[in-house]
């Protein structure tokens, strides 16, 4: 199975379900070192995405993901809206055929990461979603020769490990940076939602 429009749609729908189910947890994480809205933001955004994709005719995965990104930008707000929105748009733009193989999806995910880093200027270690997405993209690309399923599984695991590891970091970007050393000891909400989104991909491509 290659990554086509239906797979892209399934990914986004699964991500929406995961984010919605974990909205309270994400908001709680954001409450500790941020402003207690990350789960609410993503739930609102992905609910809108699900509605936007309903009946949306797409000739390939790219269109689905561009639509997803555009909708997130229009509905989420906050820091995560433009970041996730731009990432999905970049991933989608990189996928111009009717379907993509693992190598192509890996390259597209790398574009997504680049979009986030360009917009947010966060480096790995700054305690942001980059700390989940960066190792995930590397893992995906490394495992791409094994096919979509294994690559996505590797990415999900790397994202989960990266998200967990943010707990030890001191934030240098985003709201948590205002806390200085007090940000240490709390897991980053954005890195956590990134892990959920990549786990959704792995589940769909399994």
């Amino acid at each position, binding site marked *: 199975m290659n990554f086509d429009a239906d797979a892209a749609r399934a990914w986004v729908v699964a991500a929406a379900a995961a984010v919605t189910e974990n909205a309270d947890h994400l908001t709680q994480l954001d409450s*500790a070192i941020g402003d207690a809205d990350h789960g609410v933001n993503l739930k609102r955004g992905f609910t809108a995405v699900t509605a936007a994709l309903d009946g949306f005719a797409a000739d390939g995965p790219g269109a689905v993901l561009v639509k997803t990104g555009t909708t997130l930008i229009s509905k989420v707000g906050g820091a995560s809206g433009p970041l996730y929105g731009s990432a999905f748009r970049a991933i989608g733009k990189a996928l111009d055929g009717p379907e993509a193989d693992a190598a192509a999806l890996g390259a597209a995910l790398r574009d997504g990461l680049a979009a986030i880093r360009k917009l947010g200027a966060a480096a790995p270690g700054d305690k942001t979603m980059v700390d989940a997405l960066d190792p995930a993209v590397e893992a995906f690309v490394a495992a791409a020769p094994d096919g979509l399923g294994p690559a996505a599984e590797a990415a999900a695991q790397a994202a989960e490990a990266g998200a967990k590891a943010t707990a030890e970091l001191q934030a240098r*970007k985003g709201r948590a940076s205002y806390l200085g050393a007090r940000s240490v000891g709390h897991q980053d909400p954005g890195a956590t939602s990134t892990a959920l989104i990549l786990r959704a991909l792995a589940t769909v491509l399994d």
Partner: protein
Amino acid sequence: MKKFINAPEDVVREALAGVAAAHSDLRVDLENQIIVRADAPRSGKVGLVSGGGSGHEPLHGGFVGRGMLDAAVPGEVFTSPVPDQILAATQAVNGGAGVVHIVKNYTGDVMNFQMAAELAADDGITVESVLVDDDVAVEDSTWTAGRRGTGATVFVEKIAGALAEEGASAADVAAIGRKVNENSGSFAVALTACTTPAAGKPGFDLPDDEMEVGVGIHGEPGRRREKLQPAKQIAATAVESILAAKPLQRGDRVIVMVNGLGGTPQIELYLLYGHVAALLADAGVEIVHKLVGNYVTSLDMAGMSLTICRADDELIRLWEAPVVTHGLRWGA
């Protein structure tokens, strides 16, 4: 949860409906969630737009009106508005002389306003941005998100608004806004956490004898936690923190705001102001104008912030210029 609401996700929309019902001098676009002066766009006048997450009222909606903002763009509670809203506000106030965005320095606000400015440029509207980053509790560093925008936003909006009303260019309006920000420092202390409608419980627990020092306006904990101090000591901490980052000389003139974060009685704000005034008098600094009250809040947080802005003749003249908004009004 102890709030006068119906459902958390409807709070901002329903509050805007209340604003629409209350104030016929404002045009509330419920679709785009923006508040616009009823007489906008005014041909030849620079349009002034600000916005950010809701929960800081009267900022920004309370400052829309003659001599201040042309439009406010409220996001969800503590969540930056989205580019579509900001674009709609920018279009609504564009009278051909360009639009100035006043943006508090938060990653989300900066990115969403930036995206909106790019969309507006595609639309042929020139947008200048003024970034407000006055909170001296946060270190100023290029490696981090930098200082937060807090109390000085009121000063920037008032003074830039007055210059815009005089017919100045977008570049000049933005320049004076940046000058106000550069001249300003703020510092805040909280005694309780606030509760967002979505979270439904206070953002952090604070023992009865402790306070959070160096807090922002989004319910986040501060830079450090300390034993509760007498008001006099808290005022001194705030003044010293600001002066360390934004030094003043004897003879300097300032505009000062002692601001409540939402849950602090006015009587305590005046008590604090008395101490601030005495401390600045000791430093040989003249308070030319002042605000004491709730101007930039953090929902129901019990807390105070102090903002000090070094002022020259031009800033003082623009501060004194007429302003007719629901949150600030004089001279007309």
